[in-house]
């Protein structure tokens, strides 16, 4: 399955590793087993010592008495009890008195050591295989029985010899059972008058402990199997929810560019709420913007070629006509037309270059704090000088506002120059172009108002669009339609906004809003004429003409 690439495999490995941690806990059961066996041996020792004490209290060791005590115990003990004399001959054996009926035991659960159902056994055998292999070293054990002297019927086991020698004796004998059942034997000396008269032999199989452990191990194994299944399922789920969508995203990313390197298709915005959905949405947004940018670039190129064709067509036909007409005045007319159109092409070329540079490199230009009041004062002054009294009047009102923005002084000058030139070109003779600067609310606002015919509502959407130019009928042709587009490109580049509104009764007001330089904010509006503490929110009047000075 291709979806099960490396990521899901790693997840599976990790999950299974986690599952093996509880499985390794099975090893702890060995310690548990040893403790259980020690506890059993202590219990047996106690039973043996009690019997020995009872025998010692009688003062002598004989078979009848020993059997009588065993009878009295009434099989309520846990282990097989035997009494041997000094020679090792069995005097009494609880096993000969019938089956033991031990009292209900609180600690060790009295699970009857029933033979396990076959499938359980199989499960156990499969589960215990690695452990059995691990223990392979000590598994081949010799089968032992209680060593008995065949001729005399005397018990000759090591524990009995030890007990008859006056010491505590213990021995385990493997019964050759599948479940490693062993017989635990201990022997305790019976002393009468400080002499070893015989011994009490206590025997009990570990079968009960073993079957308990057997059940526990089986349960652990079952939990292990269930966890394993869960781990596999989890991994599959993770594979389908993470790896598959990722693989799909990767495939989609590979298909985004076709063989010719064109952008085709894109990421579909996902409805998933998780990180993959976020990634998908981010990629979709990325390609969408990339596509938009490409489309914008392409349409800009088409627009540029379109815009160049009109003056070219005009030049070409004018040259043709100039060559054909005989009248020198007519020829002059056509040649002048060529001259004007060449100038227009040059202007167009430089503005296209300008706007491309703004698009591409605005961030690369060196930004520095620019004092807008100073910039506007110089700019308006230069417009006044250039117009030489023939054009509209230029008014500037900074109302003492000091607004510093961060940007390139050249670019900002260009933006405001375009706006003022635009306003001037729409102004009727003797009209006024009013420039005002306000600051407050973290923004500097520059307004440029004219008294022109206003912008028809139908063009509202397109007024800042590249190459869009609207002039009232009969007014100067030859505007490139890039002036306001350049203004917008520059203002947008500095995180500002440019908009316009119509003025009553006539005219248009353009509003440029630029974010103030951050460090400047607290000491705003300390202009030369407003040292009396005008705050940042103190916005100057829109149409004041206080700064008009000539």
């Amino acid at each position, binding site marked *: 399955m291709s979806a099960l690439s490396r990521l899901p495999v790693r997840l599976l490995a990790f999950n299974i590793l986690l599952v093996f941690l509880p499985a390794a806990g099975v090893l702890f059961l060995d310690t548990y087993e040893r403790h259980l066996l020690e506890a059993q041996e202590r219990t047996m020792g106690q039973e043996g010592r009690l019997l020995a004490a009872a025998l010692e209290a009688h003062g002598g060791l004989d078979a009848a008495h020993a059997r009588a005590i065993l009878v009295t115990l009434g099989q309520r003990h846990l282990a097989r009890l035997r009494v041997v004399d000094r020679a090792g001959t069995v005097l009494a054996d609880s096993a000969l008195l019938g089956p033991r009926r031990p009292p209900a035991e609180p600690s060790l659960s009295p699970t009857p050591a029933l033979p396990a159902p076959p499938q359980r056994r199989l499960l156990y055998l499969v589960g215990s295989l690695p452990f059995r292999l691990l223990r392979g070293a000590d598994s081949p054990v010799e089968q032992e029985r209680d060593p008995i002297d065949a001729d005399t019927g005397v018990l000759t086991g090591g524990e009995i010899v030890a007990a008859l020698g006056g010491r505590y004796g213990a021995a385990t004998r493997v019964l050759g059972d599948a479940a490693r059942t062993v017989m635990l034997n201990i022997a305790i000396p019976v002393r009468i008058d400080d002499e070893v008269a015989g011994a009490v032999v206590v025997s009990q199989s570990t079968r009960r402990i073993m079957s308990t452990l057997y059940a526990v191990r089986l349960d652990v194994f079952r939990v292990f199997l269930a966890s394993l299944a869960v781990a596999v399922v989890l991994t599959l789920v993770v594979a389908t929810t993470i790896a598959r969508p990722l693989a799909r995203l990767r495939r989609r990313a590979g298909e985004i560019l076709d063989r010719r390197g064109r952008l085709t298709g894109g990421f579909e915005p996902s409805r998933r709420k998780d990180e993959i959905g976020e990634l998908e949405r981010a990629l979709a947004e990325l390609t969408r913007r990339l596509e938009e940018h490409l489309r914008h670039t392409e349409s800009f190129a088409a627009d540029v070629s379109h815009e160049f064709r*009109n003056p070219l*067509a005009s030049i*070409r036909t004018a040259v043709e006509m100039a060559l054909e007409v005989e009248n020198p005045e007519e020829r002059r007319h056509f040649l002048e037309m060529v001259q004007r159109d060449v100038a227009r092409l040059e202007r167009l070329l430089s503005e296209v270059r300008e706007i491309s540079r703004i698009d591409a490199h605005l961030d690369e230009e060196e930004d520095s704090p620019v004092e807008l009041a100073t910039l506007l004062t110089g700019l308006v002054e230069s417009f006044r000088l250039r117009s030489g009294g023939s054009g509209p009047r230029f008014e500037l009102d900074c109302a003492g506002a000091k607004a510093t923005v961060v940007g390139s002084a050249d670019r900002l000058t260009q933006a405001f120059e375009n706006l003022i030139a635009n306003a001037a070109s729409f102004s009727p003779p003797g009209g006024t172009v009013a420039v005002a600067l306000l600051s407050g609310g973290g923004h500097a606002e520059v307004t440029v108002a004219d008294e022109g015919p206003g912008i028809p509502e139908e063009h509202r959407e397109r007024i800042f669009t590249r190459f869009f130019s609207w002039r009232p009928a009969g007014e100067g042709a030859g505007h490139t339609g890039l002036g306001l587009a350049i203004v917008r490109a520059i203002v947008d580049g500095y995180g500002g906004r440019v908009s316009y509104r119509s003025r009553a009764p006539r005219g248009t007001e353009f509003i440029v809003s630029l974010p103030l330089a951050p460090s400047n904010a607290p000491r705003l509006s300390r202009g030369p004429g407003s040292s009396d503490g005008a705050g940042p929110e103190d916005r100057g009047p829109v149409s004041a003409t206080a700064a008009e000075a000539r």
Partner: protein
Amino acid sequence: MSGTVAIVEDEQNLRDNVAFALRREGYEVAVFADGAAAWESFQRALPDLVVLDIIMPRMDGLELLRRIRSTSATLPVIFLTSRDEEFDRVLGLELGADDYLCKPFSMRELMARVKVLFRRLALAAQPGDGAEQLLGVGRLTLDLRRYTALWNGSPLPLTVTEFMILHALARRPGHVKTREQLMNEGYPHDTFVSDRTIDSHIKRLRKKFVAVDEDFDRIDTVYGLGYRWAEEAR
């Protein structure tokens, strides 16, 4: 030959030049700066021929053409396009323009088109005067005076340019014409036409033939050379 030519063009210099040239040729000229102004006047009286820019403020050329065609199906219209996009030309021709020129065009080329369209108009008005100049190539018949073509007897709606290119091909069946040769035939006065223009003309020619005859395959592309009118198997 005279008549009224309306020029609808927002580029003032170009408008003035075209008007000047047309007046020199003896035509009456009416100039309009945008489609809306032109339509206002056309509603009162239609001119005899229209030279139309496509991209204009206040009603573009395509919309104006649509309105003209709703009034007159035969008024000759020449488009002046400044876009490279095939779209404008195809749409313009499908809406029923008679020809188009790409800016920057040659004024002589435009004058030649105007002349041909007027001639076509005049001849269409007085059919069968016996002075026909017909060229028959197999199932193709070209009327060299009217600039009209018949395939299997069905008229083909060709522009003047397409007619001239087809004429250049069909005149010498089996001979390959290079794009440059076809350009010179199609635009005899213009030296600035891109040779890709010929490809789109050929494409449209084939389409117009296929529209009247599904099995049409007479125009061969000779790779690396140009195009050829295939001789019909006999």
